[in-house]
């Protein structure tokens, strides 16, 4: 499937060809990241920039690890803007983009 929003190459490299490891990591990602996404959305809507930045910081290495390239910069921007106390139209736009990409990634990874 060429329309995948994720890329497991880095994870597979880290796993050294261990399919079980990759599968375990996918399960872990699907178990934890949706909840983090919800927390991030809630922090954004309630204007809690510090929590927004902190959760973006936590999601960031997972976005990198799963090769969700379309939002690697957006998640970093959200982390930085959150730390700087900024919540505005731009963060709203980035949040929506991150949510959309991650939601697709969750669905696609469930089929993995």
């Amino acid at each position, binding site marked *: 499937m060429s329309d995948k929003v994720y890329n497991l190459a*880095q994870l597979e490299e*880290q*796993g*050294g060809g*261990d399919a079980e*490891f990759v599968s*375990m*990591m996918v399960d*872990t*990602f699907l*178990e*934890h*990241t949706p909840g983090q996404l919800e927390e991030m959305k809630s922090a954004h809507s309630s204007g809690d920039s510090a929590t927004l930045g*902190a959760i973006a*910081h*936590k999601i*960031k*290495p*997972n976005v*990198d*690890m799963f090769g969700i390239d379309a939002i690697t910069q957006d998640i970093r921007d959200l*982390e930085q803007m959150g730390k700087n106390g900024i919540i505005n139209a731009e963060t709203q736009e980035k949040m929506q983009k991150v949510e959309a990409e991650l939601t697709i990634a969750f669905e696609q990874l469930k089929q993995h």
Partner: protein
Amino acid sequence: MSLMKIFVVEDSIPYAKVLLHHLRLNPDNEVEHFSDAKSFLNQIHQIPDCVLLDYSLPDLSGIEVLKRIRAQAPDLPVLIVSGQEDVGTAVNLLKEGAYDYIVKDVNAKERIWNALNNIRENARLRKEIDVLREEVNQKYDFSNIIGSSEGIKKVYKYIEKATRTNITVSIYGETGTGKELVAKAIHYNSKYRNKPLVSINIAAIPTELLESELFGHEKGAFTGAVSRRVGKFEEAQGGTLFLDEIGEMDLNLQAKLLRVIQEKELNRLGSNKSIKVNARILVATNRDLKEEVRLGNFREDLYYRLLGLPIHLPPLRERGGDIMLLAKHFLQDFIKENGFPDMKISPEAQQRMLSYPWPGNVRELKAIVELAAVLSDDGIIEEKDLNFNTVTDEMDTLVSEGLSLKEYNRRLIQYYLRRNNNNVVEVAKRLDIGKSTLYRMIKNDEINLN
């Protein structure tokens, strides 16, 4: 280190799983995971071998966790693993004692792996040093100084006193009586035992080089000073400095030594900067320093400064039964080292040994016993196996070889150097030649100080 216990403190479960997966690839790693600082700090008393600490934990900042680790386990290596590359934070953490700062990027795995290998290697080396240090301590336990004569019992008593304080100790004794062994016994049984013992034989170093050897020099301080060099005083910082053959020191240098000992600070040659020194001083000599003071060869003020606790090592000829105790000890050591069958010393050989004056003292006894063990044919050392006349024999050999006068002189000087423990000053006096002649011959490789 065989097993390495690693604590991973990481609240991102996916990232923690990646770390745990990698770390457990090495079966020698015993890995435990904590997802917050509090649960980790509750278990810190287990003292792992290393901690991988996420900088952004939900309950405490990385720097705070690091400080708490340092309070409980100051030497525990902590690798900070952070989601962001922030040089300022990294510098602060390293200043607080973090072992390394690793960013969660594609290179993290390799950097963590390398850091753990380094930690493992350092731990192995530390353990090896501890074992060696313990071995050295045992080797120089002063109960290993053999003998039961009154003279040596007094030496034991004084060594014990010397180990309890930092008093300067002056060790007197003829050549071969074991002055260096006593210095080692004092150091390795004193509170300085885990710091260096630095020895320097004053007689073996040309006067013009001695000052730099003792006090060090800066680059360019004199011709040939191509780089900065730390002197023996600084090398011995916090430990013991053993100045052997102190009686051979030049009067000018004696004044400089006195100043350093009095003021507890020195200037490297070519530098105006004062450096504090705090080594414990032990000195040894085969001369009567008091007599040297009277003759004007040794400064009186330095003599009193160095006198401290004087320990007089009796010559072997005055140690009676110790001769046979030592002979049997050296024989057993030699047999063990060379895999020889058990050997005995015949009553006649023992009688001969007891009546011999032993001018070379314990060193000579050891050499003669070892040679006798080699020469013996039947596992019993007989009188004929004791080769006391090494001096005469060697001289006879020299004469019979029909050497040139120059070669004869060279061999003669080499012989006396060996016999006098490379004491250039002593040999120069004994053979009535200039020290500079000897130094020149050493420099030209005509003779050597092996």
